[in-house]
């Protein structure tokens, strides 16, 4: 404002707040601020008074009471003697698991379909178009219910696998049993079990898992060193040393040794009593939600990927072809890296959508955060306001985390101005 010389002979008058351009914007901002604060105050005050009128207080003590209900297949040890807080954590973990798995699967599917939609194969491209239009134009809840209903109605009860000559038999070389309750898959067993590491709060991690994680991360770091040295050698001498067999060995040999040492093997699911046990039972709610979220979000991601690819000028492709690059290397080395810059910001939105959409789990009895904290806990304790507020906060935090991660990734791939 300093660059606008104020006429000295004009004294300040109240009407200038409205009619003088120098003050008007300030006046508007102050008024809007006061209105927003007043609205917020009114909402809070009204809530407090109405809660009082209902004879309810506002406290989060219920989180530390015994929950009293069970959750099917919790990712961490949980039973009805645990607190509502732990039930909420179980729900949160389920939300996180379905979100991560959904994001990964949807990204792969979306990228493949997005590229396929640009294919020169007319039929293939049109089929992909049909997929995209089908999924993004029908509400997600319907897809979830359709997939769930199909799984429940078409597949048999576990009892169909019983007897000498069962009606149904396990598929994929006798490894996987599809039932109308869950998909039973083999679990991983160890003959030489190193025991569990207790992280506190009855959350355990097997030492073998840690060993594999260390070996894989270590292998990846060593591989980077090898690649850097190869690059340096190429820069110095013009000839690149052969590294593929070293890399292969680094990534596989330690893992194979660990597999041999721990005696890794698959435990087949067996029908005992009412249900399969021994293996891992992926509940149909989980499978249906994962499939539906993947297919639905994948359709949106496909469009984003297609748009990203189309945003790269055709000259780039032609230049790459002129240099003799094959089509798939052109895609991987020239087009996708440039397309990523366009793709990532809207992709972030899709990840956020998927995470929030996972709360539709309630429709298929998958106990996510909405099912535990916002469902059973809310109902059994009657703490609507607290539970909903807490849930809003947690979803907000999750979304901000995803945004932060994706923004950091975006900063790495975006065009560097030199």
């Amino acid at each position, binding site marked *: 404002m300093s660059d606008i010389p104020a006429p000295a002979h004009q004294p300040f008058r109240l009407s200038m707040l409205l009619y003088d351009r120098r003050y008007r914007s300030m006046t508007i901002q102050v008024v809007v601020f006061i209105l927003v604060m007043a609205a917020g105050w009114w909402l809070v005050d009204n809530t407090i008074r109405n809660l009082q009128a209902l004879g309810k207080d506002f406290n989060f003590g219920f989180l530390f009471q015994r929950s*009293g209900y069970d959750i099917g297949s919790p990712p961490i040890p949980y039973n009805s003697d645990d607190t509502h807080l732990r039930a909420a954590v179980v729900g949160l973990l389920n939300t996180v698991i379905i979100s991560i798995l959904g994001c990964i699967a949807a990204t792969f599917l979306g990228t493949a379909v997005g590229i396929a939609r640009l294919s020169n194969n007319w039929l293939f491209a049109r089929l992909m178009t049909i997929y995209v239009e089908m999924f993004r134009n029908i509400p997600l809840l319907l897809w979830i219910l359709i997939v769930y209903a199909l799984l429940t109605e078409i597949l048999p009860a576990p009892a169909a696998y019983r007897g000498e000559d069962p009606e149904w038999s396990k598929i994929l070389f006798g490894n996987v049993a599809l039932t109308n309750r869950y998909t039973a898959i083999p679990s991983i067993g160890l003959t030489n079990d190193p025991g569990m590491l207790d992280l506190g709060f009855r959350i355990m991690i097997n030492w073998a898992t840690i060993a594999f994680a260390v070996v894989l991360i270590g292998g990846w770091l060593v591989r980077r060193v090898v690649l850097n040295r190869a690059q340096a050698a190429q820069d110095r001498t013009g000839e690149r040393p052969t590294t593929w067999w070293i890399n292969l060995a680094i990534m596989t040999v330690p893992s194979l040794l660990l597999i041999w040492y721990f005696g890794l093997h698959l435990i087949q699911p067996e029908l005992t009593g009412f249900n399969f046990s021994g293996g891992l039972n992926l509940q149909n709610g989980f499978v249906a939600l994962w499939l539906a979220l993947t297919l639905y979000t994948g359709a949106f991601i496909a469009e984003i990927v297609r748009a990203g690819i189309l945003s790269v000028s055709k000259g780039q492709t032609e230049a790459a072809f002129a240099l003799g690059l094959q089509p798939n290397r052109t895609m991987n080395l020239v087009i996708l890296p440039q397309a990523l810059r366009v793709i990532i910001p809207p992709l972030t939105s899709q990840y956020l959508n998927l995470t929030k959409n996972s709360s539709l789990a309630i429709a298929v*009895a998958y106990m996510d955060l909405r099912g535990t904290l916002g469902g*059973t806990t809310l109902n059994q304790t009657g703490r609507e306001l607290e539970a909903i507020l807490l849930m809003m906060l947690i979803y907000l935090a999750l979304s901000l985390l995803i945004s932060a991660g994706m923004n950091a990734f975006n900063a790495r791939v975006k065009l560097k101005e030199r």
Partner: protein
Amino acid sequence: MKRSVFLGSVAAFVAASGGAALAAEGDTLKAVQDRGELICGVNTGLVGFAAPDASGNWTGFDIAICKAVAAAVLGDPNKVKYVPTTGQTRFTALSSGEVDVLARNSTWTFSRDTDLALDFIGVNYYDGQGFMVSKDLGVTSAKELDGATICIQTGTTTELNLADYFKANNMAYQPVNIDSNAEGEQQYMAGACDAYTTDASGLAATRAAFADPENHVILPEIVSKEPLGPAVRHGDNNWGDIVRWTLNALIAAEEYGVTSTNIEELASNSENPEVQRLLGSSDDLGAMIGLDKDWAKRAIMASGNYGEIFAKTIGEETPIGLARGLNAQWTQGGLLYAPPFR
């Protein structure tokens, strides 16, 4: 429908923060009379207790309570708007003022009566939780259900009883949390769960709607006490009294032999002073709760006395076929006992 659960909670939030406070502190009786309509929270569909018939009219055991209250308060048993609620939305609907009275086979418990700020005004059905299984499963006792997958309506007391029962008997189970009786029925019929558990009356009602009820058994174990009754909000005692005494009037009517057929006759020439007070021929009990003299008479005429309602909706003559059992009058060895009208 699932969304409605969430929307219900949001509605409660908005109602609590917005201006709909009148329902909590205000005069529900006046609100109902000004509106000319009673809003009754009911089950989304449980044959015999509350379900719309082929022509869309709600009928059932719980519906009869709504009708009796409407008749007492508004003079017309049909001036009721039925709001279907799920196990999850019911209490929120009541405490947010969306419904005036909740007649939805809800169990009277300590925490609901106190912490949820509801008032259960009595018991219209003494129930207990049971299990239903398919006959070809070969199970004859709930104790044999170790490892079974069990369908359970979320947000109910049965959900908590189930956890307690399996824990007490050192058995494991896989819960499938469903949202309404219809969904539970569908999952159970598809074989997605081995057993379905809810109140024994609910199981009988659900089974009656099956195409092959003879292929399903209700196991003998009753694992809990489930006194089911209508509920109103805390804070409006006069309204609570009206609903409570309407229910009591239905129960007392059966005890004194007042039925929908002989009520006019008894109103004019009954010798029994209790019946005279009940039907408003002597004293004016109605004035004490803000109603006229004939309130109880209209309530009883709406669908008959307690025994008539029971026989018509869920009794042994109906497909649901429930015996009176605990729900017989105290004079018949049951638990029904209306306090005196004086």
